[in-house]
Structures are given as structure tokens and as C-alpha cells.
């Protein structure tokens, strides 16, 4: 990254009191230093208190908006506070914070607007269930066809965005299951997307935002949103 860039780590967290302190500490240990913003998505536990105790900025939503609304709050914060780069790091500890620098290097090296940390570019020990593999396959196929560029990990939330992308997403970010859809929106609006291989941990606490039963609903809904996006007029930049 160019020296002097101001970097914000956006950490969406919903009832993550057991994991959040460790996640924050891990990000605070990253060099070059990164500011941390925890977006507490209407948690009913002590996520906010734990995050405040770690000395980072905390924004608490008055009620649960879902991951998309939470991350978008982070983009808005990044716009207001004039950050150059925003990195999304999930509050459950599955992303490896030390790999933020990997994303930043790729962003700088390949002049990308968006860098996605991918679990699937190399086999780095991520195990997935059959349903999940199917979903992953569907998104890879659909998004590759629509964008004519192969994105191997459309559901990864471990991503870095530059100033231009932050500004755009602060106005246009899907709400419920934003990751696969945002790839399409970004690609369609001319942002350059790159991927790089990263590790991901098995989650230790809390539940995935997608349970087994809801994965079908998830897929239908996201696919519908993606197909609708194709016919939408390009958003204003």
C-alpha cells in the first residue's frame, strides 16, 4: 500500500461477545496500523462493551439490520472519516487478520478497486459441506458467466475496498446476503475485482449467518437479486 494510506477495518458483529475482543486485538496487531470500527448490529449481549473496552471505535445500530446493513454502516463511516481503504473482517474470528496485508498488497500491486480473500484459489484447509459446495459452485458459475471473469469465492466476506468502491458501496449495498450480489454490482459498474488466496478458520463461537435449512432460501433469494441486477440500470457514480 502507498505509505500514509488510512486504512479502516470494518468488523460487523452480532452477538459476538466471546470472539470480538480477540478479533480486535488481532487486527490491532497488524502492521501497518489499521483503525478498527466495530459495527454492533443490534446485539443483545455485551458485544458493544467488549469492543469499547478494546479501545476501538464502535457504532451500535438501534436494531438488527443484517450483515449487509451493518457493513454498509461501516462504509458510510469510512466516507465521513475520509479513509483510503476499508477492509471487512468478520467479527466471529474466522478471518485471519494478519492477512489484511496480503489483500492490501494485491490491491496496490494490481491496481484493483476490490480485493477478495478467497478460500478456494489454493487448498488452504477449508472444509465445506455438500450443500455449501453446491452453493459455491452455483455462484461461481453464475457470476463468472455474468462478469466474464472467474471469481472463485463469491461468499467470502474478507475483502478490501479502495476509496472509489467505498463511496459507491456506501450508497449501493445489498442488505440480507450481500457478498455474492455485491460482486455483480461492482463488476457491472466497472470496478476491477481481484482475488487472492487466504486462510480461513472454522468458526469457534456463534452461528453462521446461514443455517442449513435456510441455505435454499438464501440461494434463491440471492440468485433472484443477481438476475434482477443484470436488468437494472447502472447506478449513478
Amino acid at each position, binding site marked *: 500500500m502507498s505509505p500514509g494510506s488510512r486504512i479502516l477495518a470494518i468488523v460487523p458483529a452480532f452477538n459476538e461477545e466471546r470472539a470480538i475482543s480477540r478479533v480486535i486485538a488481532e487486527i490491532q496487531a497488524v502492521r501497518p496500523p489499521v483503525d478498527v470500527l466495530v*459495527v454492533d448490529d443490534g446485539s443483545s449481549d455485551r458485544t458493544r462493551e467488549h469492543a469499547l473496552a478494546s479501545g476501538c471505535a464502535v457504532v451500535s445500530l438501534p436494531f438488527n439490520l443484517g450483515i449487509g446493513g451493518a457493513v454498509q454502516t461501516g462504509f*458510510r463511516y469510512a466516507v465521513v472519516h475520509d479513509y483510503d481503504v476499508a477492509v471487512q473482517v468478520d467479527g466471529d474470528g474466522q478471518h485471519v487478520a494478519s492477512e489484511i496485508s496480503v489483500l492490501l498488497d494485491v490491491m496496490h500491486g494490481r491496481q484493483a478497486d476490490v480485493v477478495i480473500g478467497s478460500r478456494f484459489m489454493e487448498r488452504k484447509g477449508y472444509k465445506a459441506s455438500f450443500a455449501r459446495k453446491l452453493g459455491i459452485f452455483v455462484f461461481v458459475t453464475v457470476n463468472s458467466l455474468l462478469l466474464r471473469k472467474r471469481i472463485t469465492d463469491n461468499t467470502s466476506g474478507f475483502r478490501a475496498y479502495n476509496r472509489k468502491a467505498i463511496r459507491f458501496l456506501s450508497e449501493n449495498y445489498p442488505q440480507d446476503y450481500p457478498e455474492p450480489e455485491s460482486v455483480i454490482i461492482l463488476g457491472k459498474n466497472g470496478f476491477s475485482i481481484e482475488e487472492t488466496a487466504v486462510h480461513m478458520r472454522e468458526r469457534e463461537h456463534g452461528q453462521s449467518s446461514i443455517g442449513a435449512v435456510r441455505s435454499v432460501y438464501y440461494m434463491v433469494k440471492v440468485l433472484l437479486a443477481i438476475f434482477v441486477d443484470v436488468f437494472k440500470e447502472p447506478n449513478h457514480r
Partner: protein
Amino acid sequence: MERVQIVSVLLGLCLLGIIFQLIRKNRLLEQYALLWILSALILLLMSAWRDLLHKLSALVGIYYPPSALFLLAILCGMMIALHFSVVISRLTKQNHTLAQEVALLRREVDALKSVKKS
């Protein structure tokens, strides 16, 4: 006028009366009442002026004119329901934006307060 006509005209007038009353008492905004008033007027017109209903049915090939009336009523209902979905979607978006703004502003206020204290 046949009995069924009198009943349906009365029902239509009732609906109109209720809508006006709701607007008058500020419990229904005009913009949302518009579709309701339009629907009530269409149904009223159709029940009062049977000839129109018969001609309309013949025109689109409905053999049993009352079913044209049902069709109209259902279409009106669906139009209103769709309108509501549009309105709800807009409100949901605005609600999200408001929640985000409130959260960000609260954070700014807290930051300002702690600066003031020190």
C-alpha cells in the same frame, strides 16, 4: 333497479364513506387513499350502470357479467396490494438508512462528549 344493484351500490357508497371519514380524521394520507377511492368508484359505476358491465363483459368475452365485476374487484385489490409492497419497500430502505445515520450520529456525539470532558 334490481335488489342486487341497490345492495352493491349501497356497499360501494359505504366504502367511499369510510375512506372519506378516514382521510378527514387524518388516519389515511391522501396519497394512499387515491387508489382506494378509484377502486370504490369503479365498483360503484359498474354496479349502478349494468349496461356498461354487460358491454364490457361482451367486449372481453366474459359470458357471465357478474364475474367481470369479480375480476375488476380482484384486480383493484391486487393493484392496492402491489402499491403497498412498493411503499413498504421504500419505507424499509428509509428505515435502514435512518438506523445507520442514528448509529453514526450517536457515535459522533459520544466522541464529542468525551473530548469535552477531558
